[in-house]
């Protein structure tokens, strides 16, 4: 049995170091196994805030490479490359070789809780903007607000399904490390999101406008999932009110640039009444 195969994790994200902190050892192991199963090669586990902070200082952490005996027969992750991509200019912080690039934190822990751990994290120059996802058994709005206002990037309410965990973690990583993978492979073209250039299969090229680029980036981060009209408008204009027609106009022009047949879109698909979905090639 493998906790794996929940959506493919983009190649450039697989080497991101992830630290899972949860006082429930079994749950922490499971989360780590799920992430490894999804393709993340470097997942560490800590069982308390103190342990996590020690890990940041480079002191040994119970790094848990998948261990069949210990994890109920979980197979090691299929891609067990442990070498780092060596890209130290990632995201918003200068990540060193050993630095973590994503934290998955439990909120309720004895001693130092998740919020406090996040505050302590943010005090460190290397982690002022490191992406953080909370795992919370509480679903009180207050907790969400306080988690997000501290600078958490997302939260996942327990109980969750493995897919959800992988999708959220991947989405956060894609957002945070977008510039590492500027190339978007679509059915009828290849888009370089760093330069906003569209290289069409028919040999033509096109340039994306700022709004088109924004829309395509949001859709690319959530590739394979429907993004609501409202989320797109919020990403482009900061509000979801009154921009639906503009959005439609931008989508239409975007399709003209990236689709082989704009009236029969294969990449930028409409989910009727809901929003749009980007389908990547392959």
């Amino acid at each position, binding site marked *: *049995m493998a906790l794996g195969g929940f959506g493919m994790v983009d190649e450039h994200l697989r080497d991101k170091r992830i630290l899972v902190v949860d006082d429930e050892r*079994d749950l922490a192991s*499971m989360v780590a196994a799920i992430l490894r199963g999804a393709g993340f090669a470097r997942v560490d586990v800590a069982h308390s805030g103190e342990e996590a902070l020690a890990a940041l200082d480079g002191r040994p952490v119970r790094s848990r490479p998948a261990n069949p005996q210990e994890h109920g027969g979980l197979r090691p992750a299929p891609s067990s490359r442990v070498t780092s991509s060596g890209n130290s200019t990632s995201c918003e912080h200068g990540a060193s070789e050993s630095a973590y690039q994503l934290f998955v934190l439990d909120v*309720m822990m004895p001693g130092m809780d998740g919020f406090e751990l996040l505050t302590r994290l943010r005090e460190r120059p290397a982690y002022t903007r490191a992406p953080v996802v909370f795992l919370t*058994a509480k679903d009180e709005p207050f907790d969400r607000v306080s988690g997000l206002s501290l600078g958490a990037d997302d939260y996942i309410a327990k109980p969750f399904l493995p897919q959800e965990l992988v999708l959220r973690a991947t989405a956060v990583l894609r957002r945070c490390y977008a510039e590492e993978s500027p190339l978007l492979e679509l059915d009828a073209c290849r888009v370089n999101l760093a330069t906003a250039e569209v290289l069409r299969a028919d040999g033509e090229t096109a340039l994306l406008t700022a709004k088109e680029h924004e829309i395509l980036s949001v859709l690319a981060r959530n590739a394979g999932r429907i993004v609501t009209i409202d989320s797109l408008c919020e990403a482009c204009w900061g509000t*979801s009110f009154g921009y*639906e027609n503009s959005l439609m106009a931008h989508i239409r022009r975007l399709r003209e640039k990236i689709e082989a047949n704009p009236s029969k879109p294969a990449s930028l698909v409409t989910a009727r009444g*809901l*929003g749009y979905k980007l389908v990547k090639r392959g």
Partner: protein
Amino acid sequence: MFVALALLIVMVDFFLYTLIAYRESNEHYNDDSPATAVRAVDAALSRGEDGAWTLSEDGEQALDERGAWALLVDESGAVAWSQRVPDEVPRSFSPNDVAMAAHYAEIADYPAFFWDRDDGLLVVGFPKGEYWHESLTYPASTIANLPLYVLLVFAVDLGILFVLYAVARRRTQSAVGPIVDALDALSEGRAAELNLKGDLREIGQRITETSGIIEQKDAARANWIRGVSHDIRTPLSMILGYADAIAADEGASDDVRADAQVIRAQGLKIKDLVTDLNTASKLDYDMQPLDLERVHLPRLLRSVVVEHVNSGLDELHPLELDLDENALDAVVLADERLIGRAVENAIANARLHNERGCRVQVTLAVRGERALVRVADDGAGTSAEELAELKARLARARTARSAAGSYGEEHGLGLVLVDRIVRAHGGSISIESEPERGFSVELSLPLA
């Protein structure tokens, strides 16, 4: 009420007066009255042929019994006869003396009674201080008006009584008012604190104490529900995680994978239940200040539906969203999370009752001042009896104080919560169904 009280007082007064008068007259005026003594003496006193006065034994006895004395004044004013007359009593009376004595009914401080005889005036004197006499003289008009005066006095009395009554009543009401308010608050599940003065102080303290106890129990229950739902989440995450992994494991046999899918599906039901319980508990205790904000319904519905579609878990229950042209800008004043929860519950209800699959359609329309969110499936539906029973159950749950308290009947909390949430927002729900023609829930919410 007041009239009855006044009547009662008059009757009691009258009764007491009669009683006392009867008793007094019995005691003093029957055998024992001065008038009988005087009459006895009069009868006993006679003048013989020789002009000598004799008092028969009856007369003497009558005098002796009362320690009284007697004398007879003749026409000249001289005492013609006397018996046991004290020394200070004069032995002759001028017309003035007689008039004054008769006026004050006493002679030399002895209460005296007079009897007119052919041969003179009989005077019977009693021991000092035994009788009290007052002669009163009023103008005839005064006496004629007497009933009026009595009435007037009575009316004034009534007035005073009424004022007293009104004041007392008012004071009671002002004291009872807060108590009633406090009890109302308690029965509605709110806290009550009472600071009363005077006689009712203790009642106030007791109500405050009671409120405290109820509050503690409520809080304990809410905490308990929260605690349980919190503690279930972590193990449930793991059950779901591993069941999901087994269900997706290509190395496992089909049977095992099917079993794992059942575990996962049931786990998801527990997840819904836990969330419902938590929401119900929140509705019960934190509802009063609803977290109201302007909620753009199309946006909310899109995110609810997209979350389901994106989860990709449920291929048996495809979900569609249909927004009416006129509802694209529908905004309600609501607690976004709660309304989202209500719609999710309605969708979950459709899935729960159609395990073999059905299409679920979410529609939004605006009619008049109301936004109508409709969650309809094309599944098995339900019979008229079952529908009526469900409606009755919702009605019962409405009168129950606590949403969490209506847990335990047939189907968990799903639609009960939808109803509660919608009603807390000033809306209402209606359900419709026909066998084999699906089931629909319509949430009607007032537009902002």
